[in-house]
């Protein structure tokens, strides 16, 4: 779907004279979804600037600090990448769901259950070598998250509970379960705090010559795979088709409900994986910090990434940079984090509105091109 209209047409074919709009920069921008995103971000920054002026600061200065601290300082870079990793991994899972019209809002709970499952499995065997422990923990976390997602999926598919409700409510069950788990069955007997044992040898090592844990690589490996699956595989085709017209998928490809079930479980598995990477790469223990809100922020990441894997990657880095930069702005300029972060939802609103406009323009252009082509092939006006 990222191919712009017209670019795939065989240029040797005299019948497909490229209609003027297709292939123009404007058209490519609209088709890929990039144009709406860029305009939305600029518009949101403008609104944000108004807020910053209102708070008595110079917006240009604030934005400069945010960008400099998050992207051009070594520690900023490190924090940006480390925070982008769970956002991106969860965002990819959500993007597949959203693209298919399956609204998984419960990644936060799936992440928590993934982390709990991982620590439950690897906690007792923390002195095994890391090379064994890391894959075991990762798989346990993915299963934990997938089961949590599958419970929502079961409610959604079997009992027609709205997916938003079914997934969101499971978050509010996961969080108390976490609090109970770190106080009773998984509590570290060595401390008085409500927290689990450490992950022991499963702690992710830093990448050569840096202080960034290797979990970040997981995101970099996952993005191209996800992009290929979305655009070229049968599964990706079904996801896109389901989002555009699920009835046609059910009439020709699969039983109703099958794809939503798989997507919710898959979203859960990826959220669980993110939970493990945070646990083994950053937090070391499961505790109150495990539910840090990545599952919810990842929803914005998926929407900003227009549910496209590469877009999700960029959005994850961008949002993470904003989070890191906002804290830097608070430290150096005393600007409340909440103010800078309010720009996020403003971007989302612009993107959603922009999408509607974009679809209208594209549809109208497609119809015009079809009419032009018809006139071109049948100048006498047939059909």
């Amino acid at each position, binding site marked *: *779907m990222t*191919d712009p*209209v*017209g*670019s*795939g*047409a*065989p240029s040797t*074919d005299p019948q*497909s004279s490229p209609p003027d709009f297709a292939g123009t920069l404007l058209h490519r921008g609209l088709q890929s979804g990039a144009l709406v995103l860029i305009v939305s971000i600029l518009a949101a920054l403008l609104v944000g600037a108004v807020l910053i002026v209102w708070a008595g600061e110079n917006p240009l200065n604030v934005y400069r600090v945010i960008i400099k601290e998050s992207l051009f300082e070594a520690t900023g870079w490190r924090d940006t990448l480390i925070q982008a990793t769970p956002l991106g991994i969860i965002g990819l899972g959500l993007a597949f769901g959203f693209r298919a019209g399956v609204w998984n809002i419960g990644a936060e709970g799936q992440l928590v259950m993934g982390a709990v499952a991982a620590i439950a499995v690897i906690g007792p065997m923390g002195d095994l070598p890391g090379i064994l422990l890391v894959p075991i923990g990762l798989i346990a976390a993915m299963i934990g998250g997938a089961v949590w997602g599958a419970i929502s999926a079961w409610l959604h598919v079997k009992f027609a509970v709205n997916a938003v409700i079914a997934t969101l409510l499971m978050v509010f069950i996961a969080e108390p379960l976490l609090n109970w788990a770190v106080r009773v069955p998984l509590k570290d007997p060595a401390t008085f705090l409500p927290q689990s044992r450490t992950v022991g040898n499963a702690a992710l090592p830093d990448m050569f010559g840096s202080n960034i844990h290797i979990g970040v690589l997981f995101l970099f490996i996952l993005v191209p795979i996800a992009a290929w699956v979305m655009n*070229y*595989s*049968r599964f990706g*085709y*079904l996801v*896109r*088709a389901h989002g*555009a*017209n699920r*009835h*046609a*998928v*059910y*009439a*020709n*490809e*699969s*039983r109703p409900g099958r794809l939503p079930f798989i997507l919710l479980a898959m979203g859960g598995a990826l959220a669980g994986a993110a939970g493990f990477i945070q646990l083994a790469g950053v937090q070391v223990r499961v505790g109150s910090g495990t539910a840090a809100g990545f599952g919810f922020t990842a929803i914005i990441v998926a929407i900003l990434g227009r549910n496209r894997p590469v877009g999700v990657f960029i959005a994850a880095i961008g949002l993470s940079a904003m989070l890191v930069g906002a804290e830097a702005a608070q430290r150096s300029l005393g600007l409340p984090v909440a103010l800078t972060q309010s720009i996020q939802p403003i971007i989302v609103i612009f993107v959603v509105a922009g999408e509607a406009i974009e*679809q209208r323009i*594209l*549809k109208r252009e*497609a*119809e015009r*091109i*079809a009419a032009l*082509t*018809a006139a071109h*092939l*049948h100048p006498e006006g*047939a*059909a």
Partner: protein
Amino acid sequence: MAGVSRHFGLVQALTDVSLECQYGEVLAILGENGAGKTTLMRILAGLDQASSGELLKRSVPYRPHSPRDAVAAGVTLVQQHFALVPTMTAAENILLFRSQRQVRTTRDRAAKDVQALAARLGFDIDPERRVGEMSVGARQRLELLRALDSDPDVLLLDEPTAVLTDAESDSLLDIVRNLAHDDNRSIVFITHRLREVVKAADRVVVLRDGKVVSPAAPVGERSAAELAGEMVGEEVHDAVRTAKELGEPRLIVTDLAATGVGPVSLKVHAGEVLGIAGVGGNGQTELEAVLVGAQHCIGGEAHFDQTGLADIHPRRRIAQNIAYIPSDRDKTALIGPMRCDENLLLGRTSRLARRHEKARPLMDEWSVIGLPELAANALSGGNAQKLVAAREMEGGPALVLAFQPTRGLDPGATTFLRQALLDMTATGSAVLWVSADLDELLAVSDRILVMFSGQIAGEFQPPFDRGAIGLAMAGMS
């Protein structure tokens, strides 16, 4: 008794339709799908405006711009599809549709009104019962009650018995007659069922292709055969089908039943077109859904060669080389926002890698006007249907299930698709062709079955007796 006359002159859906209905009489408007019956009703009820012509009520010009205008003028419409809120009670549903001024009446008051009105009409309706718990017949009576709540002098009924059993529809029609004769109201109802015309109407008008074919005449003076003939028309066909030797039976349906259809038994043979005629809404969509596995089958069976079709998985259906042209193309056959070449892969996603090389030749072969890279929803109806046919019939299907394959298409595409389907039979495909267009079926079918009320109401061999088919379509065998 004051006379009411209404005149129309519309360009397309209705052409110069003139008719009048007296007070104290029931006027039936008889016609097939697309005859313009519903358009006529919508104009009368203020849901639509006539593009020319005029309407008079009690010799005064009547031009409703909204249903509210119509109700204020004493004209109400009972629509074909229920417009009731299932979670509310009967009395609440009545209240919901009262005008602002009347809404102040309390629920108790409304319940009493409902009860009083129902009692007077001899209805059995519990005002405190939720609509969702009522039978279909009771809902239809409630619809009627709601229409009568504003005490109209003209009542319009659009296929009022479409969803009712015979006993239910008989009792409803009795009520309708009483409303006209005893209360001196004017009642216009549209239907395609001759039985009802004979039973309830005083006079009948036949509408076809938006024109009045025969002016209002007392029902007693018309024979059923005459009316049926007028309803389906008497056009001459250049292609007259002759009986042909049947091949092996490929599709065998035995006592198949599902909600809204059956029991139905039929056979489609190799090289044969079996046409299924019938006015829309007589079980065709349900038959379609059961045969393609989209609706649960509650009895009987359907086999294509050795394969059971009940609850068949769509990919298995496609693997069996069964082509499916659905009646609701945009909903079940195409993914509008996706590209044409991607739409050609729906149900055939194992060929994903070769989409680019295959799409162009296939679209050319089926003369689909459009680029493979364009979104399918940019295609015209005819081209979209050709795209579906190209996908479904690639490689010569063993069985073609075609439901309303040419409905709503331009003449060029219609001819093209009819020929394409007929060409399939030359190579031994069995074709089940469901259509509401009798002319089409007469031209293409080797045999014709008529569906009425979910069942097969008759089987016809060529040369086809149009009048007899028309009678069967109207429920008179």
